């Protein structure tokens, strides 16, 4: 019974933890502009993150080494350091977007200006990092994030033409009025939203936080392989809502209130309240994960003591790094940047930074010194190489497409 509970909890938190501000914004924007024609990218991204998270979790469980220790060890100080700078900046950017998301959602709920909520959101994130145990933090955020299921409920209530939606999804083509480069630019953004590096830093370091061993591999695989695809379905529902409401009216999504509008149209105040709760929980959870990831990456590269299983005084550089990251994110938001715009950049930069994180994990997952009998099987390796090609291609194409399309124009 206890075991079933643990599995259910793991799966549920994986679903709730999958969707963050990046998935919310990108899916809604893409749904409004391209309908369901980019759903295939979500599928590719979800399979990719399953593969990547599963490998990094297995490496962490068997060898006890978290992802950035592996990156430093395999790529050396120079290339590993370049990756650290890139990953750290992307993670701080994502953290900024998540804190902004919390403030935007609270603004929706309260009609109090978001700039007043920002310091409060930043402080709340830091307090939880400072005082709350890892397992509590992970589970509560994941479970509350599950209320985003209302996007799926809303999609049904909107009573869309299902045949039309499915047709858009299985016969993807570029919508009239949109350029082909723009279509591919958003394809990369969606891919980056599904495969953010911080998820892998968090997942593999979390394995250490919870002291996983080889015995826990099976459960972690179930969490990932069941939880993430269900999270992916949630992403698709968000895109679907936007596609039903905004695409026919040719309205672009540029604010959080627009993202929640289809839910309000479908289910009135109750669903709207739930969806706002879900967004606060999902962005809060992701803010914790990204803030922890800034500490994890720095500490693992430099060999500092890290982890929530220590008292702050036993991991002082780790806690200082997180404190500074949350502070920087909060201050950046107070300059009045648009959190939605920050989000749109953060997902693309995620895709750009990914290859140097992915390659070392793929190599070490095959290294018997680290993995013993738990090295990758043939299927995982075949899939791993296919994704290596996809990840490198997306990373190389991102900047030219960003310039060509004026960041999605």
């Amino acid at each position, binding site marked *: 019974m206890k075991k079933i509970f643990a599995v259910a909890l793991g799966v549920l938190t994986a679903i709730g933890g999958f969707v963050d501000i990046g998935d919310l914004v990108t899916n809604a924007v893409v749904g409004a502009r391209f309908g369901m024609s980019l759903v295939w990218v979500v599928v590719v991204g979800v399979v990719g993150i399953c593969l990547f998270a599963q490998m990094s979790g297995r490496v962490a469980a068997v060898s006890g080494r978290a992802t950035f220790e592996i990156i430093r060890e*395999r790529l050396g100080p120079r290339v590993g350091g370049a990756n650290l700078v890139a990953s750290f900046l992307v993670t701080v950017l994502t953290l900024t977007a998540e804190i902004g998301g919390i403030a935007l959602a609270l603004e929706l709920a309260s009609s109090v200006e978001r700039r007043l909520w920002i310091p409060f959101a930043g402080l709340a994130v830091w307090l939880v990092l400072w005082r709350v145990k890892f397992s509590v933090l992970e589970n509560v955020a994941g479970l509350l994030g599950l209320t985003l299921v209302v996007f799926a409920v809303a999609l049904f209530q909107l009573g869309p033409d299902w045949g039309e939606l499915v047709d858009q999804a299985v016969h993807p083509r570029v919508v009239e009025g949109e350029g082909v480069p723009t279509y591919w630019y958003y394809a990369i953004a969606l891919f980056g939203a599904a495969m953010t590096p911080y998820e892998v830093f968090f997942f593999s370091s979390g394995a250490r936080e919870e002291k996983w061993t080889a015995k826990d591999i099976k459960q972690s695989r179930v969490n990932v392989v069941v939880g993430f695809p269900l999270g992916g379905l949630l992403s698709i529902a968000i895109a679907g809502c936007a596609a039903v409401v905004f695409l026919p009216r040719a309205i672009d999504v540029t604010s959080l209130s627009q993202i929640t509008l289809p839910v309000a149209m479908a289910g009135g105040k109750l669903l709207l309240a739930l969806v706002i709760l879900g967004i606060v929980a999902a962005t809060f959870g992701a803010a914790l994960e990204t803030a922890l990831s800034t500490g994890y990456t720095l500490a693992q590269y430099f060999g500092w003591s890290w982890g929530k299983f220590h008292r702050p005084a036993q991991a002082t550089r780790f806690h200082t790094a997180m404190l500074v990251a949350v502070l920087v994110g909060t201050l950046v938001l107070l300059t009045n940047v648009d959190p939605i715009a920050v989000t749109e950049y953060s997902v693309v930069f995620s895709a750009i930074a990914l290859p140097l994180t992915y390659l070392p994990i793929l*190599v070490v997952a095959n290294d*018997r010194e680290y993995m013993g009998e738990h*090295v990758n099987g043939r299927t995982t*390796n075949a899939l*791993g*190489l296919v994704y290596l090609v996809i990840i490198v291609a997306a990373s190389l194409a991102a900047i030219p497409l960003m310039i060509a399309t004026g960041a999605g124009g």
Partner: protein
Amino acid sequence: MLLSDLLDAPVHDADGRALGFVVDVRLVLDGPLDGVLAAPRLHGLLVSPRTGSSFLGYERTDENSPALLARWLRHRHRGTFLVLWDDVLPPDETHTPPAPTITLRHDYRRWSPALPQH
């Protein structure tokens, strides 16, 4: 001497012909006992025609997967060899820093770079 003084240093034979670059330094734990373990003795240098990317170590281990990656990296580091430290002329101490050029004795021998299997 720092280990990083040796890494990536160009290697020449006694006639000044370029042989490649130091990509790694082989140590053997058979020096005088120092604490719990024996001190690592500098045993030899691994010399490759290329610097960089050798860190994945495929050319020295029998790791074979993922096959395409292993084959490609091994191919890049074809021609890697081991020379024993006894075959290296004493480094010119006035030369450091920056990294010295490593010069080998005229009768040096090249060995397979593979790590012994434990």
